[in-house]
């Protein structure tokens, strides 16, 4: 199909011309240019915030629904958009990192991969402590989905590291909040709103982060336990100890399987050595100290299109949560692999070829089990046949307020419409 001036009736030609006037890199969508099975009409790749803003303005004029995408690692997360005209790729929003090593901050274009950023910062012995569970996410995508990895235990998540942000609003205005200094309380911190917004409030074009020095030394202490309760006790004890672990992770390949616990310590060599021994005393003398992480470390339990469920809960509930997962899995006939943080966030993965009725039964059972423990269950990703049978989000206490925020920012419901809970 030609998206140019000779396009089909219904203003397609006008639309194509308007988008081309806004942005140099515009093409009609082809096979595979879709978001969770919803096909797009256009793919645009702006090279600057100004171009992106022009695209948003053109889209506003022509009432086009826009979905921003980064590397596409999480494009099938959340709900499918309920309409889609333009896929806006952020791969053109790369450019230079403004790294101020002496201030421990960096301003980063949204289309840059976290792994590339790591290389730039490492030249000055610094890092952004935002673990990327997908391995190839962009900065914008990581923020929009609020992903986090093992070191959330000590450093928090993206919202704790983000100090400034530039966003193109759905009407095309380029807007900033926060700034370039770590300490700053001037105005509302809108960066928080955009973190976890699934692209439903606007397009993130760049972000400024607080950085940390790369540690001089690190060590992983790991142990394997036959029972979940025993493993959870050990993990909880490490999290409350004076070892100040950067991460405490658990892994289980399926219900009833042994549970691995791995602890990351970072610091000066002398300190890490002493703390490793202290952690070994907690994990038991079968535990091992290694320089490198276990193979499963920091990776999602299902990267390949399967069902991905995130479970959050109070720190001390780990053992009961693992038991509840087994219980729900047993009743639903599911075999979830479990990985995640002793900080109270686990990811569960089900294989892509799972019978749709299995997660459809498993997820509500899990919610019922975890509710009394103060836990929350969110389905991050479900393949097409499974998704319609699931409530992805579960109860969201502040949903009415979130909807009102959406309506102010995007009254036409044009930016990633329907991607988040309650039709937002």
């Amino acid at each position, binding site marked *: 199909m030609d998206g140019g001036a000779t396009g089909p009736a219904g203003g397609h030609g*006008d639309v194509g011309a308007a988008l081309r006037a806004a942005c140099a890199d515009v093409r009609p969508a082809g096979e595979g240019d879709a978001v969770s099975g919803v096909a797009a009409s256009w793919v645009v790749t702006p090279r600057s915030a100004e171009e992106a803003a022009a695209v948003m*303005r053109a889209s*506003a*004029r022509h009432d086009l629904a826009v979905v921003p995408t980064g590397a596409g690692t999480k494009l099938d997360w959340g709900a499918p958009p309920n309409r889609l005209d333009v896929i806006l790729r952020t791969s053109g929003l790369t450019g230079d990192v403004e790294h*101020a090593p002496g*201030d421990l901050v960096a301003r980063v274009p949204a289309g840059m991969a976290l792994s590339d950023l790591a290389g730039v910062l490492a030249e000055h012995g610094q890092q952004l402590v935002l673990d990327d569970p997908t391995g190839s996410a962009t900065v914008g995508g990581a923020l929009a989905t*609020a992903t986090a990895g093992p070191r959330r235990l000590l450093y*928090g998540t993206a*919202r*704790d590291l983000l100090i400034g942000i530039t966003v193109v*609003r759905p*009407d095309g*205005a380029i*807007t*900033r*909040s926060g*700034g*370039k*200094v*770590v*300490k*700053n*309380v*001037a*105005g*509302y*911190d809108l960066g*928080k*709103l955009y973190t976890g917004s*699934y692209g439903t*409030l606007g397009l993130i074009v760049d972000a400024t982060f607080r950085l940390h*020095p790369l*540690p001089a030394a690190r060590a992983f202490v790991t142990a394997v336990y036959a029972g979940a309760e025993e493993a959870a006790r050990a993990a909880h004890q490490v*999290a*409350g*100890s004076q*070892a*100040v672990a950067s991460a405490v992770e658990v892994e289980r390949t399926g219900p009833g399987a042994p549970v691995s616990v791995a602890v990351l310590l970072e610091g*000066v060599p002398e*300190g890490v*050595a*002493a*703390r490793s021994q202290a952690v070994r005393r907690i994990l038991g003398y079968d535990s091992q100290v290694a320089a490198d992480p276990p193979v499963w470390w920091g990776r999602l339990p299902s990267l390949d299109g399967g069902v991905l469920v995130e479970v959050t809960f*109070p*720190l001390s*509930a780990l053992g009961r949560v693992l038991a509840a997962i087994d219980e729900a899995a047993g009743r639903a006939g599911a075999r979830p692999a479990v990985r995640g943080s002793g900080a109270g966030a686990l990811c569960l993965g089900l294989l892509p070829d799972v019978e749709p009725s299995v997660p459809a039964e498993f997820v509500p059972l899990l919610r019922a089990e975890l509710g009394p423990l103060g836990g*929350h269950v969110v389905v991050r990703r479900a393949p097409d046949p499974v998704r319609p049978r699931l409530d992805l*989000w579960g109860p*969201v*206490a*502040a949903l009415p*307020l*979130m909807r*009102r*925020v959406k309506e*102010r920012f995007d*009254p*036409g419901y044009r930016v990633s419409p329907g991607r*988040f*809970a309650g039709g937002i």
Partner: protein
Amino acid sequence: MRALAERFREILGDDGVITDPVRLRTYECDGLTVHRATPGIVVLPGTAEQIAEIVRECNAARTPYIARGSGTGLSGGALPRADGVLIVTSRMRRIIEIDVANQRAVVEPGVTNLAISQAARPHGYYYAPDPSSQQICSIGGNVAENSGGAHCLKYGFTVNHVLACEIVTPDGEITWLGGGDPGYDLLGAFIGSEGTLGIATKVVVRLTRTPEAVLTLLAAFDGIERGGRAVSAIIGAGIVPAAIEMMDALAIEAAEAAVGCGYPEGAGAVLIVELDGPEAEVRHQFERVETICAEAGAFELRVARDDAERAAVWTGRKSAFAAVGRISPAYIVQDGVVPRTALPEVLAAIDALSADYGIRVANVFHAGDGNLHPLVLFDDAVPGEGTRAEEVSGRILDLCVEHGGSITGEHGVGVDKSRYMTKMFGDDDLDTMQLLRCAFDPMNLCNPGKVFPTPRLCGEAPGVRRGVHPLVASGEAELF
């Protein structure tokens, strides 16, 4: 107002409502005493449900309301209005739960910052953000201001330590923010919103393990420049101290006069560096810090090895704001931020300003994160000096903005700095913030007139006005 007061008496009982003019005056200002107004009515609720009822009554009467904690705010955030209701949380002081296993505490908004740490300490935990006002200020006020403290260099601010809040929305509904919800981080946006998005009625805070080891160093230099060099070298060595604080000669003079802190004689600047964490880490890094300070030209190093010695080192720093009262009849406490690497340049520029205007400026700052607290000294008995001091104070904020910093690092915008917001943010930026405000408070009754320069009515929020309605947009290109 009278009818409203009657309704409040029905909700709270007689002793929960203040209308007596003399007693109302007690609440006429916060810690920024230049702004004063006697509130129309003061209410002292005891529960979230009562606050929700009060807010609904205010809405029905189209009467603005303002939350107040302990009134220590330094930007006039809790400044009342004669036509408004002041909702004071001083009766909501219950620590509901210290949940050690989950490293958190649930408290009411009027609980003081320090009370949380005191309750957690027997369990080996504390609440990390430590504003200097921690003995008095409330956690609700901390949430509203996103307060920091000397130790936020390593540990972060209120926003990094609050896990969830129960709030009364400007609609008068009770809801929870945070605590497991996916999607927009409304909790994060609420924290630091200076009481303009609702009233916090319960706060769940993270408790932090009391560090195994704490070591504190006092290093004396001949001047700010050498001290600054030491700070750069410490950061450059990949060390993140719990705190790095600096005072200049005038600030030291004031502290000596007020509390006799006994800092090294002849010091043109002192640096306080505190490291905490696992014993083995701290010991090793501390040696490096000592070496770095010596190499940068420190002429005396004092090490505090226990709590008593540490308290002695901190006395001078913690008393600094009040202490300048000893050397000056009046002063302005300023709060601005610059990128840390711009500190030398900005401090030199402040010196020049001070000389130009003939106004003394004492400098106390969180050197690790570039948060300046210049104390601008003046004598209000001398005609014109107050005005010149205000000018100097404003010019310091300009310097902060010019160097890519912020007009406030922790004291907030309030009424004091709303006019400076346009120096940091453009119209589109401020309009976008207004969208959030309107989503929460469409009637503009919740602490109106604070933070933003020219409050707009929500109906005319420009983001909405300019955003073309989709029905209009389709085929109506000329509206562009």
